[in-house]
């Protein structure tokens, strides 16, 4: 169990470092880094706090606390991915509307030129 928790700690710290570097290099916008940093922070706390992990495992009726950690990690990343899907969908809608508007404006400008 201890080895798994240590691995999770390293993973969460790595995730934080990668996300922070990506933000610094403008590869990820700050608002989208929050989900990942939040997920990494939760992972870090759970992997270092045995009492919390044991309590969560007991609440879930699991005899094995590492299993609880894996389930929680899965749920956290599911939420992050779902949030990103919502953001991507919004962006795609906005992008299509903008492309259509640009095309219509170009068409109208060209029509005005032809009329002159």
């Amino acid at each position, binding site marked *: 169990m201890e080895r798994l928790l240590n691995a999770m700690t390293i993973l969460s710290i790595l995730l934080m470092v990668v996300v922070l570097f990506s933000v610094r290099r403008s590869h990820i916008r700050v608002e989208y880094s929050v989900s990942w940093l939040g997920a990494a922070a939760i992972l870090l706390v759970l992997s270092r706090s045995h009492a919390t992990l044991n309590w969560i495992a007991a609440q879930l009726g699991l005899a094995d606390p590492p299993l609880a950690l894996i389930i929680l990690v899965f749920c956290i990343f599911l939420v992050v991915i779902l949030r990103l899907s919502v953001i991507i969908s*919004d962006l795609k*809608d*906005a992008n*299509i*509307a903008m*492309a*259509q508007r*640009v*095309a*219509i404006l*170009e*068409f109208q400008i060209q*029509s005005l030129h032809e009329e002159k």
Partner: protein
Amino acid sequence: MRRASGPNELLILIPAFNEDGAVADVIREVHQVVPEAPVLVVDDASSDSTYEKARSAGADVLQLPYHLGLGGCVQAGYKLAYGLGYYYVIRVDGDGQHDPKYIPALLQVLRETGCHMVIGSRFYEGNGEHTSAVRAVGIWVFRTVLRPILGKPVRDPTSGFVGVNREALEVFTRSFPLEYPEIEALVVLQRKHFRFEEVPCRMRKRKAGRSTITAVKSLYYIIHVLLGVFVNILKFEGRRRKK
């Protein structure tokens, strides 16, 4: 392109993606059948000479900045037509499958019945000889699913040969399915309690280009459209996004 000069004016909309082999003939045929109606080709960022061919055949061309897919392409045309004040828009595909000689029949039904959408149906009188087996199976599935949803049978739900009136046009400028839009569009209209009719017509073999629905994609197509139909039924419209 001129604005609609009076009520009840018709615009012919031709969505086209890499259709330089057929689009000019389609435009010329449309001009012969309905010479008074302006023709708008929506070029979905074709890499061939669709734009040049359409322009030289006498159509106005709305050129999209990048490939949006059929739904985004048709919706762009609907938005422009609505903005220019047209009352009826009939969509004819740029590959030559839709025979423009049926346009007056579609327009007549739109005008006389007051329905919001009219579909040129290849199965109305036992036609449909140019339909592949895969597509025929898909159409049967969609007919079966759509019957209880629409409250009436629809013979050719995948037909892109459709006409809409201004009320439907207004709805489609706000909400139009992006991929494989024909079937989902029916559900969008049904949610508004709009009516549709079908008009018998014969489809021709495409003169050029490839169908967007290939045999490989057909399973994905059926699942995607069925999902889209159910999502449209469940869609929450209380919150409007600012566009």
